[in-house]
């Protein structure tokens, strides 16, 4: 039986910059095309921010795993915060009038726009958020 050591980050907004750098470096190493990197950074940043602010609201830890699976990039975030299903909270559409008068849901909307598939699984305790961006890994 083998045990994988996944990258762990403190649930602290001060870690966001380091997490985005990790995403860029790891995704590039996996062969993700450069044009997909901005969206990937946005999706992970917003998801991690949600975990820190709405999940833990205090000290905690987040594991972040990126993997390439048949041309797709899979991002898996795990925490031990109370259950928070951001995948189902994300709005499908954002009306500019809503952006102007009622700022909210921006982060979840950006996640949904950046990724092709987002799923949440409760871990008891904690959460697993899996985000997939299809056909962005150069397998050539």
């Amino acid at each position, binding site marked *: 039986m083998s045990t994988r050591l996944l990258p762990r980050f403190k649930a602290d907004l001060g870690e*966001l910059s380091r997490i*985005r750098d990790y995403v860029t470096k790891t995704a590039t190493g996996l062969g993700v095309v450069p044009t997909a990197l901005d969206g990937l950074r946005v999706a992970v*940043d*917003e998801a991690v921010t949600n975990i820190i602010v709405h999940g833990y609201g205090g000290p905690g830890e987040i594991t972040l795993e990126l993997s390439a699976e048949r041309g797709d990039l899979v991002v898996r975030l795990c925490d031990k915060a109370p259950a928070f299903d951001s995948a189902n909270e994300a709005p499908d559409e954002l009306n*500019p009038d809503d952006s102007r008068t009622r*700022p909210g849901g*921006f982060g979840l909307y950006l996640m949904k*726009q950046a990724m092709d598939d987002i799923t949440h699984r409760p871990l008891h305790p904690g959460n697993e958020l899996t985000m997939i961006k299809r056909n962005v890994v150069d397998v050539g």
Partner: protein
Amino acid sequence: MSEDLQIGISREQGDKQITVMRLSGSLDANTQSELETKAKEAIDGGAEYLFLDMSGVEYLGSAGMRAIHAITNQLSPDDPGMRSDRLKVLNPSPAAGKVFKTLGFDSFIDIHDNVDEAVAAL
């Protein structure tokens, strides 16, 4: 002040009270309050118009957009949430510009290439 966001502030000469804030680095949930604080200081100090030069913003997230929305409301307190001609965004980086467009902010905040163009639009 965070090392992740740098804010340079200058005032334009002329008959209008214009403050230009040159942002560089990351505008995220960790740094949004720095922008809001600096903008509030400028507005409290008499700035009627704020130009945000975002050419150096390498990362812009939803928290940064909420900060910009809050600044818009501070500049136009009698019209919260309405279009504000008192805030202009200058030359956003491609990553920042994409977030603006995705969230529809480009429909109610003017984006210009430079200060002169923004001043001419007032």
